[in-house]
């Protein structure tokens, strides 16, 4: 351990910790109880142990350093999302972004029904999953303060999910040809079936209104027919929602391969224009389930039956392996040096990970390689490269539904410069459902199975 590492807080459970443990346990293992740290050796540079999986949902915004959270991005199957400030005056620090599925903008969507989407050529589905983004940032001229000067930016990007397996519209049960969606609807056919019956008096009135050309009366009677089927429709909607969840679940745990690219131009600070300095980034990510067994199914089963067998916690068990690579060209990189705070460099960041998730044990192992090569030979002293790895485990210590978990993680980084040498070690007790490392996206964990990601885009983000 080097001097810059935070000291190990405690290697023993203190009285206070023990008290917290008892308190949390007696509170029926409330999920709201905070974790109790036993060992907490934080890394000096926590970014070294952050392994981002997947292609950004918006490569353009990512390149500009703007969080996609600030913009509501479209799912891959929605037409577009335009994000603008309330008044885009071109003033300082304003941004705008446009996210488009080009096929929606340019294609004839009326002829692409679900069946044609599923049975049609792969190229058609790829086009639907292909998205482009454009983002603008005005920057800031600083108003005389050089520290506040920020270049204006113009960024373009695209991303696409390549595999049908991770598309909820086309995801299938393992070894099956029928899609999860269609199969599920078939299972619920009784609940969703259209009932065309109309009360006799309403039919008589409707016939008269049609003959008379009384549009307002036609509208009223149509509404009345719909309202009369409210209960049937509510039952159908519940079944459809269940099928949506099912299709999304199978898509999340399916193989995925995503690509993305982006280019960023920097221009005059505070004014859109003068764009010249540019950088570009390529992303590639993929994941593959190595097999999960629950009953006869080869995927995580979070059905009620599984939950009932495990005290209410969804029974899950799967292995997932994956990786991600990001190559940057002409990227501005912070050096940590006051005299030369940034350099222009070509960068590479590669990462592979393995995850095991079950109802009582969550394991993960990640390893990555980073390389930064200054484009200017005179700044080569800032070039660097290094390896980093991180392992983590969560072990369930109790059998209660929201029981006690022992969480541990250990990671190390080594490289050609001191900034790449680091270490982290965490050991804690967690009261409530496990919060696994979840390497392949925030929604890839069955513990989060109630969430319904709405896009087949971006691997684990799907």
């Amino acid at each position: 351990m080097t001097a810059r590492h935070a000291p190990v807080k405690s290697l023993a459970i203190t009285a206070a910790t023990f008290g917290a443990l008892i308190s949390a346990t007696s509170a029926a293992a409330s999920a709201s109880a905070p974790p109790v740290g036993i060992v907490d050796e934080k890394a000096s540079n926590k970014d070294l142990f952050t392994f981002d999986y997947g292609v950004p949902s918006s490569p353009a915004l990512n390149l500009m350093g703007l969080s996609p959270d600030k913009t509501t991005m479209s799912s891959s199957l929605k037409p577009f999302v335009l994000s603008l400030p309330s008044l885009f005056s071109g003033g300082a620090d304003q941004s705008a972004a446009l996210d488009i599925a080009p096929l929606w903008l340019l294609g004839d969507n009326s002829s692409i029904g679900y069946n044609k989407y599923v049975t049609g050529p792969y190229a058609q589905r790829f086009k639907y999953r292909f998205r482009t983004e454009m983002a603008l940032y005005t920057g800031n001229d600083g108003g005389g303060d050089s520290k506040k000067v920020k270049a204006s930016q113009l960024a373009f990007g695209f991303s696409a999910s390549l595999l049908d397996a991770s598309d909820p519209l086309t995801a299938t049960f393992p070894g099956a040809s029928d899609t999860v969606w269609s199969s599920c609807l078939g299972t619920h056919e009784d609940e969703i079936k259209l009932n065309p019956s109309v009360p006799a008096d309403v039919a008589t009135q409707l016939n008269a209104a049609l003959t008379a050309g009384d549009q307002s009366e036609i509208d009223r009677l149509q509404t009345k027919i719909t309202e009369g089927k409210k209960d049937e429709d509510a039952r159908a909607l519940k079944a459809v929602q269940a099928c949506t969840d099912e299709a999304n679940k199978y898509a999340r745990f399916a193989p995925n391969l995503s690509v993305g690219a982006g280019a960023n131009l920097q221009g005059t600070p505070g004014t859109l224009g003068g764009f010249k300095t540019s950088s570009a980034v390529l992303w590639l990510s993929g994941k593959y389930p190595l097999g999960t067994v629950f009953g006869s199914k080869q995927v995580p089963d979070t059905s009620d039956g599984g939950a009932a067998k495990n005290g209410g916690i969804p029974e899950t068990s799967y292995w997932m392996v994956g990786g991600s690579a990001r190559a940057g060209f002409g990227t501005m990189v912070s050096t940590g040096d006051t005299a030369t705070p940034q350099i222009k460099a070509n960068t590479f960041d590669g990462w592979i990970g393995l995850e095991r998730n079950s109802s009582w044990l969550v394991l993960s192992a990640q390893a990555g390689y980073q390389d930064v090569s200054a484009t200017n030979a005179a700044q080569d002293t800032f070039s660097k490269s290094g390896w980093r790895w991180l392992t983590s485990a969560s072990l369930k210590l109790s059998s209660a539904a929201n029981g006690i978990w022992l969480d541990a993680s250990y990671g190390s980084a080594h490289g050609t410069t001191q900034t790449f040498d680091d270490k982290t070690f965490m050991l804690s007790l967690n009261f409530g459902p496990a919060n696994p490392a979840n390497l392949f996206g925030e929604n890839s964990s069955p513990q989060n199975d109630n969430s319904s990601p709405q896009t087949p885009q971006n691997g684990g983000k799907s």
Partner: protein
Amino acid sequence: MALQFVNALKANLSVTASVGSLAEAEFALQYFDASGALKLLGQSARAADTFTWQIAADILPSSGGDPLNLLLMFKPFILQGGTTNLLLRADQPPGGSLLAVNHPDPGNLYPPYRVCSAMNATTTPYAFQIRIA
């Protein structure tokens, strides 16, 4: 005159409905017979995205120019990203003309035009009238 033409050729009138993009639905088309009773012309199987009915000539009104009142019902099922617009087209025999009386712009009806939209899994009726003049 035109109706006689239809009958003479035993031509059928076809009505096609589709539910929009990346969606599927169940469709049912009913017609009002001469007595005003509602009768089922046909209902799609589950998970169709397009369905076409052939309306036999003998169902059409016996007097030239008289309308045939129809009730189309659909119930869309959308996974994600799909649309629920019901698109309708009616292919008439040569020389005939069709009119959907409850469309706001009857002069611009087909081919296909959007007639209504619905929430997911909501049974939505669309009453309309066709006339072969």
